[in-house]
């Protein structure tokens, strides 16, 4: 005994280590697997139906099978608040809701009638939401979107967030995550841009942009509701729906939707974004080698130079675009030119016509932003950064920062050159 006490005195850490092991080992060995207690949510849908929030969770419950097929379920709960709805969904799932892997947040268009930031605040403050949660809007209910997105995985192996990520990289050319939404929300003009992916009846559409047909009869799909009362989303999900991805987006001001943007409007907004390449510019009736042709150019490279100034007390935003374009398609009578699309001489006429197209797009975008008092291209922040004194003076004398963009004069110069 004395020897033991001496040993403990000499090496107290070994005793502490043994105590810790004795304490933790049974806990680790006998506690149930995390999967039993926690459902892995891969996407979240938010709806506002009958004065109640409905939270739908696309949940993956890991189970052993031989087909490697992931079994997903859409589980929903309704409540007076988002937290309430999530807790009801948790009850329906019989597990805690694990949001750490949620990569997509879908809201219905109706949610955007009011300030959506308030509804999302719970998600935004969950510290365990470590990855980028892409924020997207849909025309019907978010629940239906999740149900249909599930079939994308089953039929095409395509995840919803992959489609959205493609849009974000190639069309929106901006981050459309929850974080980016909040950055816009707290910015000078409280404006953000998020993706828009509608669901349409499959009989009603014959567009090439729909990515999946879906029927709610798939055996791998289950639906559990946290509220026993039947509701609209579940009923309508019985019809065939398609996810229609046309690269549209939604413009938000103070968390509310102010405009649905077409790809044309989006490309106008992104004109000053140097990352936005590969846009197609089509010009008609061009005299090329003596014959009249319709030409399509692809934007290969772009340099954007911007300056902000106050002229006579009013803000002027100068932008210079240096575009490198590549001829990709020709339509017309001249067979030789048609077969040599690499021919890319930029004649003054071509340059003028491309410039005309660019200006038209730019005017559309600027008018859109002015009309809604939104600024997703960061004009206001540029003035704040570059001409802070004049900017503050202007705001004091004229209006709130909210309407600043309405007073800005935009001037664009375009230089077109071959790639």
């Amino acid at each position, binding site marked *: 005994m004395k020897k033991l006490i001496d040993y403990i005195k000499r090496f107290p850490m070994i005793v502490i280590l043994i105590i*810790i092991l004795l304490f933790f080992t049974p806990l680790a060995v006998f506690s149930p697997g995390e999967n039993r207690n926690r459902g892995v949510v891969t996407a979240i849908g938010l709806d506002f139906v009958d004065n109640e929030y409905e939270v739908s969770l696309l949940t993956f419950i890991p189970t052993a099978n031989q087909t490697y097929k992931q079994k997903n379920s859409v589980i929903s709960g309704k409540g007076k608040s988002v937290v309430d709805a999530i807790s009801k969904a948790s009850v329906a799932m019989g597990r805690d809701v694990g949001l750490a892997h949620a990569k997509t947040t879908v809201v219905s268009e109706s949610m955007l009638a009011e300030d959506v930031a308030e509804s999302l605040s719970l998600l935004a403050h969950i510290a365990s939401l470590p990855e980028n949660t892409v924020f997207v809007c849909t025309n019907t209910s978010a629940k239906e979107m999740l149900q249909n997105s599930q079939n994308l995985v089953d039929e095409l192996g395509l995840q919803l967030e992959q489609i959205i990520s493609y849009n974000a990289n190639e069309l929106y050319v901006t981050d459309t995550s929850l*974080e980016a939404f909040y*950055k816009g929300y707290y910015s000078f003009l409280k404006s953000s841009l998020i993706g828009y992916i509608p669901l349409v009846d499959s009989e009603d559409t014959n567009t090439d942009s729909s990515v999946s047909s879906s029927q709610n009869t798939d055996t791998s799909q289950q639906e559990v509701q946290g509220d026993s009362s039947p509701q609209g989303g579940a009923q309508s999900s019985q019809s065939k729906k398609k996810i229609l991805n046309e690269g549209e987006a939604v413009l938000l001001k103070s968390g509310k939707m102010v405009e649905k943007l077409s790809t044309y409007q989006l490309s106008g907004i992104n004109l000053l974004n140097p990352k936005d390449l590969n846009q197609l510019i089509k010009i008609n009736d061009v005299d090329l080698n003596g014959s009249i042709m319709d030409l399509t150019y692809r934007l290969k490279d772009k340099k954007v130079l911007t300056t902000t100034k106050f002229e006579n007390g009013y803000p002027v935003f100068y932008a210079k675009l240096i575009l490198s374009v590549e001829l990709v398609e020709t339509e017309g009578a001249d067979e030789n030119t048609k077969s040599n699309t690499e021919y890319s001489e930029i004649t003054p006429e071509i340059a003028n016509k491309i410039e005309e197209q660019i200006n038209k797009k730019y005017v559309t975008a600027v008018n859109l932003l002015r009309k809604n008092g939104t600024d997703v291209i960061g004009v206001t922040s540029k003035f704040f950064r570059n001409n802070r004194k004049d900017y503050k003076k202007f705001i004091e004398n004229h209006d709130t920062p909210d309407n600043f963009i309405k007073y800005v004069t935009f001037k664009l110069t375009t230089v077109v050159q071959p790639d």
Partner: protein
Amino acid sequence: MKNTQISLRQCGIIIAMCIFANKILLMPSLMFENSKSDSIFVLIFLFALDFIALPIFLRLKKHYPTERLYDILKDKIGVFVTKLIFILLIVFFFFKCLLVFSVTYVYFKNQIYHDEFIFLAFISFLPVISHAAIVGIRAFSRTMELFFFFVIAGFIVCLCISLFTPISMPYFFTTTAKDFFTSTYNHIFSFGDFAFLFLVIDRIKISDGEEKSIYKYAFFSMLLVLILYILFFAKYQITAFMHNNALADMLVFSVQFNAIGRLDIIAMITIMLMTVFQMEIFSFAFCECFQSIFPLLNRAYAIVFFDILFCVLYYVFVGKYENVVSSVVSWLPVLGMIVSYLLPILFWIISYQKRRGKIEKTD
């Protein structure tokens, strides 16, 4: 006799750990609420004030190379005031330790251990730091020396990865002088990192001409923290107040790295190591002060008292993380100011007197 002295490199590493304490997780977002991106200037200002303590320490060390701080003060200002100062130091280091623990505990609770209870965290941390306090500064500073490279590497990796996401220059000079000084006052308790050096003044072995390297460690650590703040505000800008774990949040929300998986494990390991080391330093400081006040009680009493006080105060009195954080910005800054600025001034006066005395003797 047992060698309890540490080298200057080990001393530098301890300084680095103290500088990282309480500044790299919660503080950037708290500061942002007060002084927006101008928090960077607040940080520089507070670091500059801290830095002044370093030459004072070196001067005091030069005049009193082997004497304990307690003995130096006792000779100059008497036992009663010295004990009063040491009580202040006890409270200072205790709350520093409590703050480090609270912030890290909440971070890990949110990240991994959602359902864990506080005693599990106590069981994980307290035995390790108690052991460090008992074995002494030489032993735990050698451990720190061993892991220092990994801590710094983890820190730098976190900073570097954030460069792969879009960042832009934060907006400066958007707040008033009042905001600046409010923010400075609110976060002063998280500074005063050189106070520990005065406490172990007799344990640091400094050869002639070596002093420079201590400046290097301090400057390098401050620079890393400053870069963290700049990148954090550049990355999150106006939403910085929403991100309570700055170093870890440099890795998450990084679109480019989503596919790789949970890269934040790098931040977790770095933070875990730093927390253990920082708690070791502060608990050791607590025990040193305790022993100076109660010289008849040995180190084991000090650490047992520390452990009990820690558990009780955290669980019963402080309990909630919010309470700890609100204390940091309400009454603890007063203590921070006394320990971080008034004490170095006192030490400067003491070393000045000593110098004058020496000059008079030679005359």
